[in-house]
């Protein structure tokens, strides 16, 4: 006996969308703190933190987010000795994932501030922390905003893999509704549309910011031939 896809099923899917947004928001905030630490470590004048931060980024950007999720899930299970619910694993994995990408983006932004700014500040005898905070950060923020907003899209999309370890967000909610209604034809395209409805405006915002803050090298679109 299968159910039809009605209002209740639609509400269940929307509920899943809510969890996708909550998870993305948490990962963006905790990952933002982590990313700040990674970026600062990469800008350090001491060799060891720089190496550690680069290694961290290499590892996290060189492996699938799904594997990171499995490792967090089973790693936490090993540490605590019990099989747990997916929540802590999902939070840990997406925080570490977002920290790597945001750390890389923000380090690149600080690095793109003209060398002469660093040199002039140093020649004035300013402390490293003051240089970062008062000279570099205000200029780097401008460069960092468009790619940071762009990363948010990547993050929202990547949370779909949380469905694979049983976390009920948008994709998993869709799968569960397909299981009870057997209407994959309608439901999966609907799930895709809902992701699109969230991600597309953020993408548009990112490219608008890029044009507005003139950070990209892309000239205004024109046809070539």
């Amino acid at each position: 006996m299968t159910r039809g896809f009605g209002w209740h099923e639609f509400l269940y899917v929307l509920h899943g969308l809510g969890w996708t947004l909550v998870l993305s928001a948490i990962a963006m905030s905790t990952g933002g703190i982590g990313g700040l630490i990674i970026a600062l470590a990469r800008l350090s004048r001491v060799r060891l933190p720089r190496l550690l931060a680069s290694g961290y980024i290499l590892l996290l950007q060189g492996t699938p987010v799904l594997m990171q999720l499995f490792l967090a899930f089973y790693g936490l299970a090993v540490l605590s000795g019990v099989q747990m619910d997916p929540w802590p694993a999902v939070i840990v994995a997406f925080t570490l994932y977002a920290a790597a990408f945001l750390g890389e983006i923000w380090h690149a932004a600080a690095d793109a501030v003209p060398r002469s700014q660093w040199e002039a500040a140093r020649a004035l005898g300013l402390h490293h922390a003051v240089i970062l905070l008062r000279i570099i950060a205000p200029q780097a923020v401008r460069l960092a905003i468009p790619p940071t907003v762009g990363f948010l899209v990547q993050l929202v999309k990547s949370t779909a893999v949380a469905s694979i370890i049983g976390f009920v967000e948008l994709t998993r909610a869709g799968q569960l509704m397909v299981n009870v209604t057997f209407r994959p034809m309608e439901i999966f395209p609907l799930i895709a549309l809902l992701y699109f409805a969230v991600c597309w405006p953020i993408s548009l915002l990112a490219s608008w910011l890029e044009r507005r803050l003139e950070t990209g090298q892309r000239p205004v679109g024109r046809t070539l031939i």
Partner: protein
Amino acid sequence: MDYVFQFGVVWDHCDELLDGAWLTLRLSVGGFLIGLTLAGLIAYLREVGPRPVRFGLGTYIEFIRNTPLLVQLFVLYFSLPMLGIRLDADIAALVGLTLNFAAYGAEILRGGMLSIPYGHIEAARALGLSRWRTFRHVILLPSLRVAFPALSSQFVLLMLGSSVVSAISATDLTAVTNTLQSTTFRAFEFYFAATGIYLSMALAARLLLALAYVRLFPAAGRGAQ
């Protein structure tokens, strides 16, 4: 924590893991090559095609870039059979990765094409080259020089992202790892090993593509645009 790690069992199943890695490699390289060809075609049609075609392709690109690969695969594998299009899991995975790469690739190629000085195109037109020859020799091939690094990164992202094809039962590295961990109960060890294999593949791909870049575009012409 009284868990004892046992990596011996992973070593015993080395062959199966490598079989999975081989499919991951074939899917990613296949998706890359076919996807890149499609991307070239899309980039061309977006320049010369009639308005509805350009609009359609633009929508396609935005839709792919703003929805998760996992959901795209679900639509291909679970929704299409309702229309009578039944794809084998491995084939659906290849089609999904190809269509995904085509969208990102087309956008990267377009970015590269915008770096071509307009004078070159006018010169080609003045010499009486056809639109297709102008596109091929004056726009597409020279713009690969600019687009190559971004295409390389996108290939690595595709390879790592391909781990989600396990969710539609394609037998890639992740799927093989899932099966092995469920029969041996050594989840952490197997995912750790699989993560290591993905990392090696990603690093090897980056190295090879960097070598190819130096080889294909000798330093003389690089940089000075």
